[in-house]
């Protein structure tokens, strides 16, 4: 891999465009309008074509205006078709942007000799050609695209900072925003216009597909990582910049590993963004798949061990003559989670094993007592307040017992006026063991 100034410019362009897209994309993702980015980035085509036909040049300003109008029209048409035609919003979007795209395609093909626009160029851009178009401004010599994208990024950042709290409010609760005097509709259309402008600024250099990827993927990844709005904005921009830089590097290097020539940078940036997203989706601390699986596992392990303890406690209760010894048979060992739970209980010294029998330790017995207490309290509570048969109480209690806290126990015992037995006639165990209680009393006496 040989790195040149060209590559540096390509990376800078990619990073700028990715960051400006990602910033605006947050609002699309939060307002559940991700596909609007897709729609607008396709629908700017006729705007560009008409702007070109009218002005006859590829000057940036006319293009921007044309695209902004087309983008705004997409949002408006979608809204109108949704409102007046009572068509579902996504369908309205689908109708609007495909129709506009088709019109754009016809315009371009009809004027193909005169229009210097290639639909392919709109779709995948030509980021590799960016450094060929250098301009000097204020003494700096940069590619033109860098200037344009820099301005757009600046506009987007200013927009976000100036309307920080308004945007936040409209994202999370448009109805509340409206009652507070913030016009959610205006915010919507302003955002859509910015999406359109960002799209146009980017497509010339990186293509509309990359725009869609950068609008949605970094914001979605950031959304999985944090619940805080400001942090989400910052994270999405970091993601965008990272995937742009890594994307270009991998576009140059990855295909060569398989013996091919280098490939499209825009495509690879989208791919890298996708990879980053899947990493986040797997490993995010709270929302990630692994962490979800881990928490689920922890929960089922806790439930399984508590069930074992409860079972041992009840066996002790039933055979009060030889209180501490029970048969291993009593614990269902067939399921792996139970085996795991047994190992965990032995490790934390809640049960001990002697030959083929398990025995509760004092520590284990305390936990088990709490559990059985919760179970029987819940049964009494349900029996008192719901019109259920006695034989229907157990299943509900078996599920609920694992989630009952000390305070809930206290509330229930007060509600039930300190009952001593559950509806089946079994004794509700006390908070502490009987011996501990009697010891206390003895000491008091």
């Amino acid at each position: 891999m040989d790195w040149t100034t060209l590559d540096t410019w390509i990376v800078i362009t990619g990073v700028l465009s990715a960051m400006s897209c990602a910033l605006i994309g947050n609002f699309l993702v939060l307002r559940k309008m991700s596909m609007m980015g897709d729609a607008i980035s396709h629908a700017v085509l006729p705007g560009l074509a008409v702007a070109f036909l009218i002005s006859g040049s590829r000057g940036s300003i006319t293009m921007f205006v044309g695209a902004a109008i087309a983008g705004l029209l997409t949002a408006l048409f979608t809204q109108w078709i949704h409102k007046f035609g009572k068509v579902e919003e996504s369908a309205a979007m689908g109708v609007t942007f495909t129709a506009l795209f088709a019109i754009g395609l016809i315009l371009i093909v009809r004027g193909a000799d005169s229009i210097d626009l290639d639909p392919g160029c709109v779709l995948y851009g030509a980021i590799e050609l960016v450094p060929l178009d250098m301009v000097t401004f204020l003494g700096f010599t940069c590619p033109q695209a860098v200037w344009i994208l820099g301005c757009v990024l600046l506009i987007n950042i200013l927009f976000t900072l100036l309307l920080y709290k308004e945007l936040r409010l409209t994202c999370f609760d448009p109805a509340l925003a409206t009652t507070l005097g913030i016009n959610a509709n205006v915010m919507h259309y302003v955002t859509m216009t910015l999406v359109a402008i960002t799209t146009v600024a980017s497509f010339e250099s990186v293509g509309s597909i990359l725009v869609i990827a950068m609008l949605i993927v970094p914001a979605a990844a950031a959304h999985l990582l944090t619940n805080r709005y400001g942090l989400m904005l910052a994270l999405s921009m970091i993601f965008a910049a990272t995937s742009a830089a890594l994307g270009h590097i991998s576009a140059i290097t990855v295909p060569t590993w398989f013996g091919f020539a280098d490939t499209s940078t825009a495509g690879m940036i989208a791919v890298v963004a996708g990879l980053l997203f899947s990493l986040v989706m797997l490993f995010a601390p709270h929302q990630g798949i692994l962490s979800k699986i881990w928490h689920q596992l922890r929960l089922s392990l806790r439930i399984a061990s508590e069930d074992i303890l409860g079972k041992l406690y009840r066996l002790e209760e039933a055979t009060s003559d030889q209180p501490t010894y029970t048969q291993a048979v009593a614990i269902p060992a067939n399921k792996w989670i139970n085996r795991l739970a047994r190992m965990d209980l032995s490790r934390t010294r809640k049960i001990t094993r002697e030959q083929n029998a398990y025995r509760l330790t004092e520590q284990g017995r305390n936990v088990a007592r709490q559990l059985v207490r919760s179970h029987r309290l819940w049964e009494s509570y349900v029996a008192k307040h719901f019109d259920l048969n006695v034989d229907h109480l157990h299943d509900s209690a078996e599920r609920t017992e694992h989630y009952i806290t000390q305070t809930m126990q206290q509330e229930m015992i007060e509600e039930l006026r300190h009952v001593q037995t559950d509806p089946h006639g079994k004794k509700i165990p006390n908070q502490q063991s009987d011996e501990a209680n009697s010891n206390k009393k003895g000491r008091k006496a």
Partner: protein
Amino acid sequence: MSRSRIYFFTLLIIFFSCPASVTMASGLSSIRDTSMSLPSWDMLMRVFLLKDYNTRVVMFGTMSLGLAAGVIGTMMLLRKRALMGDALSHATLPGIGLAFIIMIQFGGSGKYLPGLLLGASVSGAIGLGCIMAIRHWTRLKEDAAMGIVLSVFFGLGIAILGIIQKMQTGQASGLQSFIYGKTAAMLAQDAKIIALVALLIVAICSLMFKELKLLCFDATFAQSQGWPIFFLDAIIMALIIIVTVIGLQAVGLILMIALLVIPPAAARFWTEKLLPMILIAAGIGAASGFAGAAFSALLPRLPAGAIIVVVASVIFALSLLFGTARGVVHRLIDHTKLSRKVAQQNLLRALFERSEGSRSLSEQNLSANASAASTSFKRLLLARSWSPRKLRRTIRHAISRQLVRARQYNHFSLTSNGLAEARRVVRNHRLWELYLINHADIAPSHVDRGADELEHILGPSMVDELLELLAVKHPELAMPPSPHVINSRSAAARAERHRSKTGSAKRT
């Protein structure tokens, strides 16, 4: 009302300017010497009588495609997944590229169509799986899931195409047609494949019609009835992938989405029933296919795929406006009719109540009075919050329908027809008020408004039920007296004045 009308006209203008802008643009391009000459009569006859073999093939292909997409698109629209086709069609691209590379590596031609289609289907299915996984495992909603899959898969596809372009054995130009389509270059073989797939889709949909119908309208109910929802959804998705894959080559990627979304959305305006909707959607799809193929055969340098979509959109716009079930104009007319009827009944009730208030309430007296006594325009105006213009218009309508008679200057009274209708309306109003007071525990001073909205739509059977319910407590049901002071702005103002007077009197 007036605001919605303004919106409506803007919509009208914009929708008609859409095709206009196309013609305008073609006008512009004619300045640049790419003139679009009108086709001769011969040409027209050749195209429409299907004399050209090529045109015949293309028309056959696009019509079958439109038909198939219309059928399966209807299911998708009703399942509220209109943009799924969008995501899936983008997701097919990497499969096409990979299939090409693999076939080249194994010494094949690389453009072997079934191989490419297989690759497309596989990668479409993987994309679908990713969407479902993201939706299931994360808090992101379906829209974000689709956006992610769409853009990342398409990016991957572009990257793979980029590799292919630089391969020695290159000739990747054919693959571009999957994105833009090459309708005009359709071969008889392609058309046959499309027709076969269309047949397959129609067959499956008609075999599973009952199940799919249930799924489309009430998935939860279907699930509770024991239908395998997931499996049914998977069938719909599989059909969508298939139709997308075969359509890619014909009309291209983005325009394929249009064929899946636009005809069903247009059909929705014409009917509330599933079977007619499917048939209409299929018809619109086929018609746009036909028209698109015809136009591009007649006029030079028009991309057929895009024309198909534009035709479909024009049909959509017309349906949106003139559809008989949910069209804008239709609903506007209904709305106008209803509000006119409501205004009419309000007028009758106001007239009745004014004349009722002036004399005694006995039965004969009442009917004699109401038809004889006249009420001035001013008093009517104060009866409710209507503008003079609206009141005048309502009175004019009522006079033309012989419900109201003009007495001397600006005084009006009920005719005997009008009296009968007024009695019915007032009775409905008061029955509902009594019902609210007796059964909903609402204070007499608060029932007027609810009754005001409901009196217009109480049917005879409802009235009978109300009579039965209220008969015990209220013997005077033939025409119950109002349970509250007849609410008018003047009465309220008078009461207000009275209160302030007595208040000030007390204070002094």
